């Protein structure tokens, strides 16, 4: 509907219901409005726009907290970053942790579907499954560290029991989790190439699966629950009348209705994934072993606050922003089909 037609219709409607047309906004209305907005704008400018702009400037300098002089180095930091092997290793680590994202999203949807059933005690289940989200992250990470203990952790105990049952206990050694550089894709920690010797389960996988566990029962599940509650019942009833089974109903009716939510979750997960890994590295592994759990976020911290290279760290931060931006734009371009379903 065109805006001109809309305004004409609105005017006619107002006449029909006897409403007076809105007053032209007086200029002096603007001043109180701005005054109300001012504290927020001031804070936003001071604590968000200012530092962001400052970090952009810093990324073109060799600013080091331990050096008195600051030089303008143009794109040197960015060039240095691209030529730094460690940057690529840490980017690969970051992307590796994002492998858990699809599993976490599917898991959230599955949980939401289960919790959307009409059954007794669902509120309790919903609360229990949301527990990880309001438990302190540090406490969870310390707990997971104990779970991953190679010899006495319950995870290896369960794997050991399963191997025993299958008669494989003698042939397969248990994963060393946080102490090992091995990973599911066999990525060598130094060369970042495939290495048969690196195939296994190690620190990268430990953090990946912990992340999946945290994400499955978290905010994504709630978003899916809300979206499922908004699926019009008449659509599902119509599908049932047409003889659709559970799977057909989900595939053809429910899933399309969830598309905007899925899109939102994918975008947010991508952003979170690129920015993630700091807490886990700081608390559980200190980025090791052999740098296998150092993500870009942790790398920025190391450069800025351990080596005091603020200029370089700012450059990596902006590169990370560019990466997130590009991925988000790609998501919008290729993933946003929400409009098709309206």
């Amino acid at each position, binding site marked *: 509907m065109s805006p001109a037609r809309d305004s004409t219709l609105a005017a006619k409607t107002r006449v029909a219901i006897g409403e007076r047309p809105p007053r032209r906004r007086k200029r002096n209305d603007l001043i109180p409005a701005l005054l109300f907005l001012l504290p927020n704008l001031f804070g936003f400018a001071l604590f968000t726009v200012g530092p962001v702009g400052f970090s952009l400037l810093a990324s073109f300098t060799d600013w080091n907290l331990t050096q008195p002089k600051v030089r303008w180095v143009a794109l040197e930091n960015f060039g240095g970053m691209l030529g730094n092997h460690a940057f690529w290793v840490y980017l690969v680590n970051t992307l590796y942790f994002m492998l858990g994202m699809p599993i976490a999203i599917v898991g959230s949807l599955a949980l939401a579907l289960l919790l959307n059933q009409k059954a007794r005690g669902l509120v309790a289940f919903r609360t229990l499954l949301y527990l990880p989200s309001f438990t302190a992250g540090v406490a969870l990470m310390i707990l997971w560290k104990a779970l991953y203990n190679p010899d006495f*952790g319950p995870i290896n105990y369960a794997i050991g029991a399963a191997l025993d049952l299958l008669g494989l206990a003698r042939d397969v050694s248990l994963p*060393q989790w946080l102490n090992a550089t091995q990973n599911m894709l066999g990525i060598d920690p130094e060369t970042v190439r495939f290495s048969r*010797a690196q195939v296994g389960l190690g620190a990268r996988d430990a953090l990946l699966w912990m992340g999946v566990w945290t994400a499955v029962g978290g905010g994504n599940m709630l978003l899916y629950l809300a979206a499922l509650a908004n699926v019009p019942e008449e659509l599902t009833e119509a599908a049932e009348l047409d003889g659709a089974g559970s799977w057909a109903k989900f595939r053809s009716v429910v899933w399309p209705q969830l598309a905007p939510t899925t899109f939102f979750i994918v975008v947010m997960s991508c952003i979170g994934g690129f920015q993630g890994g700091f807490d886990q590295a700081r608390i559980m592994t200190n980025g*090791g*072993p052999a740098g296998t759990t150092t993500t870009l976020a942790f790398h920025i911290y190391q450069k800025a606050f351990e*080596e005091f290279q603020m200029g370089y760290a700012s450059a990596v931060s902006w590169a990370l922003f560019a990466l997130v931006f590009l991925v988000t734009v790609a998501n919008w371009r290729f993933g946003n089909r929400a409009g098709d379903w309206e």
Partner: protein
Amino acid sequence: MKATLATVLLGLLLLSVAAWRDQPPAPPPGVTKLVWVSDDNPLRREQVRLFNRLNQDLEVSLDPNNGGNEKVIVQSIAGVGPDLFDCFNGADLDAYYRAGIALDVTDRLADHGIDIRQGFWPAILPTSIGPDGRVYGVPTNVGHNGIWFHKEIFEADGVPFPKTPWSTEEFIEVAKKLTKRDSTGRVVRYGFLIDYWGWRAFMPAFGASLYSRDRTRCTIDSPESIACLRFVHALMHVHRVSPTPTEESTMSAQGGWGMGSMTLFGARRGAMALGGRWWLATYRGRQDLQLGAAEPPFERFRAWTSAGRTTMINKNSPNREKAVRWLLFLAGQEYNQLINDQADGLAAVKRYCEGPRFLLNPRFPEEDHNAVWREVSARAVPEATSPFVNQRLANRLIDVQVDLLRTNQKPIEKALRDAARQVDAAIAQNLEKDPELRRKYERAQRGEEPVPVDEQAFELVRQMP
């Protein structure tokens, strides 16, 4: 709705009032408050109490939440830093010096007759004396490592107490005798407990150093360094007298104690352990322990890597002149005797570690090993740092390679060679960026730069019998 909003507002107001009332009380008129960033050790509070009692017009308060040089530097540059802060090694000092936040106290100390170079243990000097030869702090204590042992385990196993000085071979033999296995061959008690990172404590004993004498090259791949790491690696993987890192964490989890050699030693999971005198702060209450101490074994020199702290003054602090009195206190008798009595390491001033009062404290007559700690302190060597590379970056590069070695993915030689190559590459990168640093580097190569303080300390120990 209005009532709800009003209730929320009232609640917030009440909380604000409560928070405001909960603020720490302002010092009485005429009393200046000084903030000291240090670790959250209960012993610090007693040290602070002593100072406050001796200086009625000053009130030092401990801030354990802002430790770490990143926080200290950022806060001090921003003008909200502490008045006093601790420095743990030459790399920290270098960072504080370059950031321009450490106050030069050379003349202020000289006015009170204090000469850091004379009265203090030489190994602690690199945490106090800057690259320009000026003094930036006063050593707080030293915490050099020795070998703790359980006397009763030695006696029960019929092994004589360590006769020092002892070579690494003699040490391994003793550790083997003290390692106990069950019927399945599983180790139930190790001969010697050491964390993997502890290998660097033995570097001076093998004549190894992280850097060349002129500090222009990383020499962690030298034959001496390789021999040192091979010694510690063999303790775990060849002689099986020390737990591997995985075994160590497993043993800790079993006992439910936590992590680290100190905990395992307290639980008698090891007959000997590498640790400092400061372990007594934890063990003194334990009536069941009979502890002895010996100097660590050596290969070429009776020298081991040092540990200790220095306290510095924030150059940007408005109370910097008053804070000098804390440094004077650190150099004084009351404080140093308190350190010795508390077993918070050892007093940094040498003369307080002499005499019968130090050797046998009547309050702790069972502690007959203080002479060992004094000897270890005299032979301690600071870990070398280079002005041409950030030491935290160098440590990270080295740790990555040691991780690969630890997980059996690289042989010792290759791991250390790669580490040295990467540190040298970082040095080259810094030189490329900074022409002034390059000029200093070239002067150092020509031998025109003064010998670094940490190298002087090592030379001193090498000349000792």
